[in-house]
Every structure is written in C-alpha cells, then in structure tokens.
C-alpha cells in the first residue's frame, strides 16, 4: 500500500494539451474517484499513473518512489479495464495466475493465492472455465481477481462498471467497495457516473478539460459545489439555476430574476447590483400552500417510485422539484414552490465561482 503524489503533471499530444499542470495527492488507503465528462482527461491521468501513457512533464510518485520512467510492470500497480481485457484463451485460474507465472512463483503459492482471490470474489466454482463461458459480472470479477492476487500497492479502475447492466452495476459497486474496505489498498477509480462516485469514494476529484474543478468528500462536494460546473455536474436531476441580480428589499438581500425575487439568507456575501446565479437543488424546492413561494406551471410529472420529479416552467425558465411524499399533481396545473433558504447556492455569473466559499 502506498500514497500517490502527482505534481504539476502535464500531457500534450502534439499541440493539443490534455492535462495542463495538475496536482493531486492521494493518501495511503484512500478510495479516490476521478469524475468528469468524457474528454476531461481522467482516463489519461489514470493511464499515466499506470505507466501506459508517457508523461510530458511533471512528476508522479507512488509511495516515495518517482515512477515517471518506470515500466508498468515495475510500478506494482494493478488495473481493471472497462472492457475487462481478459485473456480469452486462458481459464479463469490462468487469467489470475498469469502475473505470478511470469514471476515464476512456486506452484503452491500460485494455487493458494488464486484460491484466496477466487473465494473472496465467489469465483471458486468457475476456475476451470473460460471467460466466454462467464456472465458480464463474473468476467468483471475475474478482472478484479487478476488485480488482487498481485498484492498491488495501488488499484486502478478505468470505468469498470460501464459495460454492465444497471442492476449488476449496483451490485458490483457494493462488491468493489467491500473489497476496498477489506483490503484497504489505495484505489484510484475513474468514472463519469456521479452515482458511482458519490457512493464509493472517500474523496471525489471532479475534472474538466484537464483541470481539477474540486476535490472533496462526496457530501461536501454535493452540499458545497465550488463552482457552477461542479454544481450542475453533480446531482440528478440537476440543480436549478436562476440568473438574477442582487438587490435590497425591506432590509434584506434578494436575487431579482425576470419573473420574481428570491430571498437570500442573512449574511450572504453579496453586494447590491451583483449579477449572480441562484442555485437550488430540486429536493430543496418544496411545494407550499397558495399565496407563498414561487408559482410555476407544471409541464411534466415523472413518478420514480420513491420520489416524484416535477418539471415546471417559470416564464422562460424550466425548474425541477423532487418530492418525497406522494402528491396528486398533473401537468398544466400551477404549483407553488418554496426554496429552503439555508440550502441555496450562489455563484458569480462572470467567473462561475461559488460566492460563499469561505463559509463552507
């Protein structure tokens, strides 16, 4: 087990810069998720840690050892790929034993290690099968087994669950998390799925265009997104964003939009006339009785079972509310919604940065 320290790392493909001066330090035993839309450089970063992608400049250290020029096999890492990348012509046993066979470990040790990994991953009955005879989830487990038999210092996962169906994905998510709790190996996990990131990570690293937008614990990132990008990327349905201008009304700050004025909590770090974006998560927009709140016309109602998603229009702005209680609502009707004032997020319209960063 080891920490991973990435300092001022850069990656260019010719004139194209993929990652431009990124710093990240991952503590020993942490489960870190790199999250971001496709093309944000998260997979490239992972592949640079693995040694599969050369580094343009900067430094990557695993433990105390700078690994910039080390061959992948000398970094003592293990990687699980999106498409499993199993050796199709080898049995499950041989797939897992391959790395130890290459190191010419004694047969007894190989058998014992593979047996141990197989029992953790419930693969014992399948050791003599070939990958093509296994289901998607089992293949994924073989890929993980191949990784854990080696006792690596760092686990690297590159979108390992995106080829699985939804139900299996939830199950494997739990299995990977359990595995980490059991082995406590430093893990770097790449995904574009925010639910995976939220549920599995000790620390989420949100990336865009080769830069880190925010690093934090899942709930901190959710509750205090550092900027507009993070706020809109994390959370589903996405956060409501209302453009407006700060004004003073009856001794209190409000945000005036085209249609309405939204009260701000006391002590908000704003100045009058400031152009801001008023963000409120759908679940913090609750229905209230007539005469209060924001009147909005319902356009679509989506019951999901535990929740009801209500999409409504506010003049030209679409907003969304998530209700946890059953409620008779139908499209076309007017619903009154009230934001929970302590749950609002304010962002600067120009920079997109969060305005009360210091307080969070």
């Amino acid at each position, binding site marked *: 087990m080891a920490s991973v320290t990435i300092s001022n790392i850069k990656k260019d493909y010719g004139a194209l810069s993929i990652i431009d001066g990124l710093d990240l330090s991952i503590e020993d035993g942490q489960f870190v998720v790199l999250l971001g839309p496709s093309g944000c450089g998260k997979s490239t970063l992972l592949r640079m840690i693995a040694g599969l992608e050369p580094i343009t400049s900067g430094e990557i250290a695993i433990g105390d050892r700078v690994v910039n020029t080390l061959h*992948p096999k000398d970094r003592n890492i293990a*990687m699980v790929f999106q498409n499993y990348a*199993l*050796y199709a*012509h080898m049995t499950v046993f041989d797939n897992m034993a*391959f790395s130890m066979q*290459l190191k010419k470990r004694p047969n007894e040790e190989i058998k014992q290690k593979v047996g141990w990994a197989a029992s953790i991953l419930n693969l014992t009955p399948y050791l003599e099968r070939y990958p093509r005879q296994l289901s998607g989830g089992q293949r994924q487990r073989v890929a993980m087994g191949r990784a854990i038999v080696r006792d690596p210092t760092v686990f690297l996962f590159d979108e390992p669950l995106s080829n699985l169906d939804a139900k299996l994905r939830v199950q494997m998510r739990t299995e990977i998390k359990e595995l980490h709790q059991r082995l406590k190996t430093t893990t770097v996990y790449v995904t574009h799925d925010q639910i995976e990131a939220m549920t599995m990570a000790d620390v989420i690293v949100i990336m865009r265009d080769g830069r880190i937008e925010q690093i934090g614990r899942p709930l901190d990132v959710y509750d205090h997104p550092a900027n507009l990008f993070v706020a809109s990327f994390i959370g589903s349905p996405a956060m409501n964003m209302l453009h407006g201008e700060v004004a003073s009304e009856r001794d209190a700050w409000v945000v005036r939009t085209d249609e309405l004025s939204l009260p701000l909590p006391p002590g908000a770090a704003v100045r009058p006339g400031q152009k801001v974006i008023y963000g409120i998560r759908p679940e913090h927009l609750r229905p209230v009785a007539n005469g209060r709140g924001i009147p909005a016309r319902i356009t679509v109602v989506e019951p999901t079972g535990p929740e009801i998603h209500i999409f409504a229009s506010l003049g030209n702005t679409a907003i969304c509310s998530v209700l946890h209680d059953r409620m008779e609502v139908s499209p076309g009707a007017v619903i009154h919604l009230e934001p929970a004032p302590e749950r609002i997020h304010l962002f600067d319209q120009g920079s997109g940065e969060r305005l009360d960063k210091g307080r969070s």
Partner: protein
Amino acid sequence: MESSRAQTIARDVLAILVVAIFMFPIAWWALSSIKPYSAIFDRSGPVYTGFTPTPDNYRVTLLGVSRVDIGMEQGGEAAGVIKGGASSYDSRQSLLDSAIIAVGSTALTLLLATLAAYCLSRMQFSGQQSFLFWILSQRFMPPIAIVIPIVFMFRDLGLRDTYTGLILVHSLINLPLAVLLLKSFFDDVPREVDEAALIDGATRWQTFRRVVLPMVKGGIAATAVLCFIFSWTEFLLSLFLTTSIRTVPVKISTFVTSTATEWGYITALGTSAIIPSFIFILLVQRHLVRGLTLGSLKE
C-alpha cells in the same frame, strides 16, 4: 422476420442449385478420373454411369505403374516388348515437391506476417500509413511482370530450381495479403489486453507470444489456408523457376503432349491434388469459421 414455408423451401432449392453448379466441375473431374479411356472419349455424348470404373489412371499417376505394364495386364500388343521402366506420368515426386513448397512458404509467410502485423497493429511509427499502402501496392503487379527479372536474379543467386527459391517467391507473393489480413485480426484484440499483460509483468515479446498470438489463432488459421492454397495451385512462377522440381500444376501441364492430351491422368492427378488442400482446411476448419467472422462479431 418469420419466413413462410414456401419461402424456406424456395431458399433451400436455390441453395442446392447454387452448390450443384459449383460442385459439378469437381464431380465431373473426379468422375472422369475413374473412367476408362473409351468412356472419356465416347463419341455418342457424355458418359455418366455407363462404364466400368478403373483405378488405372491413379495407378499410373500415384503409384508410378507404367502404362505399358497396364497395357500388358490387359493383354495388349506391347506384351513382351518393353517391361516396366519409369513412367513420365508418375507424379509422386511432384506431390512431395508441392507439399514441401506449400508448407514451407506458408510457414515462412506466417512467421514474418504475424510479427509484422502485430507491430503494425500495436506500435506507432512515422510513415505507418504509407508503409501499409506500400505493402498493399505489392499486389498491384501481375506476377508475369516480375518473372523474367526473378529468373535472372535466381540464376545468379543459385536459387533457380531449388525448394528454397520457390518457397521464397511464394512467401513474397503471399506476404502482403497475410500481413494485412492478420493486422485486421490483431486490431480486433483490444489494446487493453496488451496493457493488462504489460501491467501483469509481461515483456512485449511475452505479451505477443503468450497473450495476443493465441487470441488470433483463428485469424492465423484462415491466413494459413489462403497461403497454402495459393502456393499449392501456383503455376506461372513454378514453371519458370524450376526444371527438375515439378510442382503439381506444372506436372499436370506436361500431360498435354505433342501426341495426346492425357485426360485420364490429368483428372486423376487433379482430383488427388484437391485432397491435401481439403485435409488442410478440415484440420483448421474449427478455427476458420470463427476466424472469418471474428471481426464482425462483438463480444
């Protein structure tokens, strides 16, 4: 889409018809090889069944029995005049020559082509696209255009009329196709498999030899079949580059003599020549079907 019973029948009938059209020449060839001379040249029309099958054509071509001896068995006029002697229709050496050259050139082609194809599939180097086009361009030229220079070069190098010479030439002609074909099979193996092996501690060579190569077995088998068949049936270069070594196609051409065309021997040797290719294909067939469809199927 469900097809009706009538459609199914129509499709089957059509399939049988098409197969029959393709099979007929081969069947006729095989049939002629067991006909006596008189049945091959019956003036009243094609003979399908009305003859007594005879192994004589095979005995002459495959067992080296002299046609004179066969004539004597039948109490012919030549009895007592000439006995035995080597038959110029004895083709056993030709079958051996062809086998050595076909197996040799297939092995050499595969050895070079797998290595080249793996590099072209996995590694980046400048001029890669031009190099690929250059490989393909080797097929643009008809073999007749290179025959004369090769004859002179081989004479100077001492390669004329040698197994090595013909193996080299057949390999050269097969290489472009083999490289391009195998490259497409290597391309079908995800790069991540190589990367997983590299992380597992394999060197480049171990990755190639122990991981990727076994995964393209089907492609190698398919390529091997094509190379083998080409070499087995190649006529032009074999004719020009050899004198004492006679591959089967060249040997068959000598059965057309100034006095007669020995259809019986031609069909017997021709039918026999199909068999090695057939056996070879049967051996690799298990991989062949998978190999030919590997690229189009997603896991």
